[in-house]
């Protein structure tokens, strides 16, 4: 990374830290949710953007992470920060185990398998034999985390910083992973499966691991989301959520880390904007926004930004 990029990132981080003191609690809450989505989208992007495996069911991993956190906090009194590693492990294993058999399927068939997962999980959450743990249709209510050590900030601000710290950590880890051998293997498999295998990459293992890591990221996001909303219920995790995630990574930019942030901002704020524009048919407005973004930036916001920067630099050089 160039020095200029590092300075830009530092400035961005500084702005992010200043945010909760400049805007209302409600806005801080909204940005906290946007950060949560960014982690989830990064997870999905790793799988779909970098590794070329489509998933129509990532909402399921988000739900698994959320319920893991909620059940641990509600039934076992686990402190909120300790639920994150737990959710991570559960989803890593779940994703890996799901990825193994799903490997045999490609393209549309993998889409169907993940779609089955996305559709089945809410049904499982409502299943009356599992009600003791999941709370069934009533869901689980959890408490809001308080700022530790008596810091002079309110609960919303503390939650924001907590989520921000986790986000930065997850992004740095992802950047490291994708830059290294694993990342190159993932992209190689996406671009030319057979050639990659011919070169000695264990495609089966890489794909399963990618599934696992991708699920882990989305699961951690789910846990954070549950803590932020303080409530989990099957209705929160229906199939539409998986579709929203897919929309997020496409709008943000596939195979791009910064794309996760653009996508998250889109899925968090554009529905609200659409609601303000038209109370009668807000989702139609959202759809129009979506069409606009895809027509103008078919490779996502991230690549449009990259292109703009390149052009600016070229202009500057003249």
């Amino acid at each position, binding site marked *: 990374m160039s020095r200029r990029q590092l300075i830009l990132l530092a400035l961005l981080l500084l702005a992010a830290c200043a945010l909760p003191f400049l805007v209302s609690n409600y806005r801080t809450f909204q940005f906290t949710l946007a950060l949560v989505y960014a982690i989830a989208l990064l997870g999905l992007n790793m799988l779909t953007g970098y590794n070329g495996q489509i998933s129509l069911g990532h909402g399921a991993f988000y739900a698994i992470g959320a319920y893991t956190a909620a059940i641990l906090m509600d039934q076992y009194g686990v402190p909120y920060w300790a639920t994150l590693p737990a959710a991570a492990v559960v989803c890593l294993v779940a994703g890996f185990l799901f990825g193994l058999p799903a490997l045999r399927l490609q393209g549309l068939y993998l889409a169907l398998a993940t779609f089955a997962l996305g559709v089945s999980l809410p049904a499982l959450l409502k299943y009356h034999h599992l009600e003791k743990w999941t709370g069934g249709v009533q869901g689980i209510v959890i408490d809001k985390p308080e700022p530790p050590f008596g810091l002079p900030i309110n609960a919303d601000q503390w939650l924001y910083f907590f989520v921000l710290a986790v986000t930065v950590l997850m992004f740095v880890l992802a950047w490291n992973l994708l830059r290294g051998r694993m990342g190159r293997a993932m992209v190689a498999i996406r671009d030319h499966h057979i050639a990659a295998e011919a070169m000695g990459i264990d495609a089966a293992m890489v794909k399963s691991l990618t599934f696992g890591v991708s699920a882990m990221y989305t699961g951690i996001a789910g846990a954070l989301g549950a803590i932020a909303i303080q409530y989990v219920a099957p209705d929160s995790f229906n199939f539409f959520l998986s579709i929203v995630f897919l*929309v997020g990574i496409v709008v943000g930019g596939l195979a791009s880390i910064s794309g996760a942030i653009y996508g998250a901002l889109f899925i968090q704020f554009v529905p609200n904007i659409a609601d303000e524009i038209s109370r009668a048919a807000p989702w139609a407005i959202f759809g129009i926004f979506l069409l606009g973004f895809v027509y103008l930036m078919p490779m996502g916001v991230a690549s449009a930004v990259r292109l703009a920067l390149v052009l600016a630099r070229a202009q500057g050089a003249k």
Partner: protein
Amino acid sequence: MEAFLHQVLAGLATGGIYASLALALVMIYQATHLVNFAQGEMAMFATYFAWSLINAGMPYWPAFLLTVVFAFVLGVVIERIIIRPVENAPVLAVVVVFIALLVILNSVTGWIFTYTIKVFPSPFPAEPIFGRYITSHGGGAIGVTLVVLLLLYLFFRFTPLGLAMRAAAQNPASARLVGIRVGWMLALGWGLAAAVGGVAGMMVAPIVYLDPNMMGGVLLYAFAAALVGGIDNPAGAVFGGFLVGVLENLLGAFVIGNELKLAVALVLIIGVLVVRPSGFFGKVFVTRV
């Protein structure tokens, strides 16, 4: 035993619903190699058009025919105006365009017609003529689906236009070389699929009642049905629809209970696909390196 038979027949009736929409999905796939997530909403929108005509006093069959034409034109227009700009974009971008279409159609329909359920008439008699386990409409709908399937088969196999469309889908470059206007073939394919979807909607609505969310649940099943039959095989899609309908009913009634029947049905289908990745009747493609 009677209960079993009854469930099978009920399953065939709902399966007919899935089959008709799955047919439309397969048709789009054959022409474009894409799964159109907005297919259900397009069918629903066409059905509302039919409802408006009938509500204004038009008798059933003229309204039916006019709606088929409307759906066809809608399909062509959507392909030309909305899909054309992204034909060279990455596949997922096109999928997102479909999703946008889905939410737009759903939201606009709800806004124009409200979300109250509406009764949609059936052209079939009210008394059950196939025995009391299947309504006349249920049986009639299955019949209509099979007739549409036959007409499509005849069209693609024995007409020059059908041949041109098949050529355009299979090998656009070569098709262009022999003078086929590939762009318009694509639009026609969309139009036909939309028309088939419109028929599906008009067959489904009398059973499930007309409301903007009518096709939401059906689309999930139709997608599974299309895949299990082989995504590029229309007859397979119809078979898949019936299979999914019957399987789901039998699982729900006798095996796992209603809460998990969809999940288990999907798991079974995936199991089949793991063993036979091209579905029951799909063609096996060999990719050259």
